C-alpha cells in the first residue's frame, strides 16, 4: 500500500504482523484506534509508552504496536506495570486487559492498583465473556446471558467494574462503548493526563462468542445494541435501579487529584538516601 493511502494510525503499528488475528468486526481494533487518537490529543510522547497486557484476545493488542511492550501472565499485567512504573516513573505505562483478565483472575491486582493510586492507565476491554478460550461467562456477564459455561443463562450478578474501581480509590474512571469512539478517545486522553490510577472500561463486542450465544450474530447488531442501551451518567443518576435494568451507564465516574504512589516512593528515597550509597537506599526501605 502506498504510504500516503494508509490509515492515520498505521505509523504506530507493526505492519508486518497485520492483519491482526481478531475476528471480523471485533471491538479490539476500535479500542486500538481510540487509544492512538486519545494519545495524540493528550500529546503523550509515543517513545515513552510501555504497553503491558495479560492473557486474552484483548491482551494481544500490544503485540501489534511499535512501542516497548510486555505480554505477561493471565491476570497479572497491573503488577508488572507497577514494577515498570516504579523502575522508571518517566515511563507512560498503559495496561490493556480484558474483563476476564482484570476482573476474574486479576481482580485483586486491579483493586489494589486503584487503592495505591499508582500513575498508570488501565484500559479494560469488557466484552462480557472469555473470548479467547471459547465463550465462558466472566464476572461481568449480564445476569441471564448465555455462555458455554452458562447454557441456561448466567445466574450471578455481574460486577460493575467502573463503580468498583472508583470505590477502590482510582482517581480517573470512565466507561464508554465502542459505539462512541469520539467520547471514548476523549476519556482516554483524560486518563493519560491524570496523574494517578486511571481506569477506562470499554464495553465492546465479541460477535464470535457473546454475540453468537446471545442472538446478536453480527458486530453491527452488537454496536447498535450498545448504542441504544447506553445512557449518560448524568441522566442515569436520576433513575431507579429498575429503570436502569439492562442499560449501559456511560460517562465519567471519577476525576479527582490525590497523592500518587511513585511520587511518594521517590520522595521517600530522596529524603532518606542522603549519602547516595546503596546502604542509605536500604535504610530508606527499612524505614530507619
Amino acid at each position, binding site marked *: 500500500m502506498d504510504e500516503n493511502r494508509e*490509515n492515520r494510525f498505521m505509523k504506530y503499528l507493526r505492519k508486518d504482523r497485520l*492483519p491482526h488475528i481478531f475476528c471480523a468486526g471485533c471491538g479490539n481494533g476500535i479500542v486500538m*484506534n481510540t487509544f492512538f*487518537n486519545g494519545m495524540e490529543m493528550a500529546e503523550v510522547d509515543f517513545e515513552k509508552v510501555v504497553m503491558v497486557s495479560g492473557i486474552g484476545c484483548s491482551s494481544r493488542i500490544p503485540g501489534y504496536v511499535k512501542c516497548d511492550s510486555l505480554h505477561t501472565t493471565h491476570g497479572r499485567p497491573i503488577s508488572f506495570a507497577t514494577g515498570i512504573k516504579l523502575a522508571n516513573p518517566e515511563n507512560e505505562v498503559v495496561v490493556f486487559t480484558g474483563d476476564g483478565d482484570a476482573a476474574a483472575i486479576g481482580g485483586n491486582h486491579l483493586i489494589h492498583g486503584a487503592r495505591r493510586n499508582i500513575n498508570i492507565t488501565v484500559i479494560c476491554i469488557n466484552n462480557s465473556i472469555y473470548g479467547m478460550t471459547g465463550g465462558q461467562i466472566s464476572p461481568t456477564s449480564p445476569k441471564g446471558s448465555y455462555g458455554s459455561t452458562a447454557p441456561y443463562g448466567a445466574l450471578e450478578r455481574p460486577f460493575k467494574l467502573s463503580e468498583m474501581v472508583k470505590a477502590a480509590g482510582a482517581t480517573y474512571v470512565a466507561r464508554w462503548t465502542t459505539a462512541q469512539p469520539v467520547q471514548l478517545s476523549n476519556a482516554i486522553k483524560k486518563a493519560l493526563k491524570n496523574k494517578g490510577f486511571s481506569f477506562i472500561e470499554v464495553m465492546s463486542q465479541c460477535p464470535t462468542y457473546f454475540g453468537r450465544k446471545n442472538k446478536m450474530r453480527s458486530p453491527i447488531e452488537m454496536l447498535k445494541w450498545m448504542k441504544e442501551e447506553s445512557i449518560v451518567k448524568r441522566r442515569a443518576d436520576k433513575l431507579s435501579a429498575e429503570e436502569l435494568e439492562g442499560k449501559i451507564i456511560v460517562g465519567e465516574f471519577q476525576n479527582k487529584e490525590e497523592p500518587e504512589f511513585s511520587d511518594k516512593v521517590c520522595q521517600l528515597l530522596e529524603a532518606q538516601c542522603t549519602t547516595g550509597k546503596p546502604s542509605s537506599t536500604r535504610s530508606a526501605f527499612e524505614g530507619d
Partner: protein
Amino acid sequence: MVDFMITVDENLCKGCNICTEFCPRKVYQESGVLNKKGVHVPVPENEDKCTQCQLCALMCPDQAIKVDEKVDEKDDK
C-alpha cells in the same frame, strides 16, 4: 469530482461492514463480489457525499480506511 480520496486497503479489510452501516452519509456500499481473500470489501460508491468527518477511519477495526483530511483553506497557498 471530489478533490480528496477514500481508500479501503483490500489486504486489511475483513468485510465487517461497520463502515457501511455507521457512515452518517451512507458513502459505502456492500460489495457483491469477493476479493482474493474471500472478503466483500465495501466500495465508497458515494464519495461525493462524504464530509471527511473521519468516523469510518476511527471505527474500522482493521485500520483499513484512509479518508484524506480536510485541507484548511488558509494553508492552501
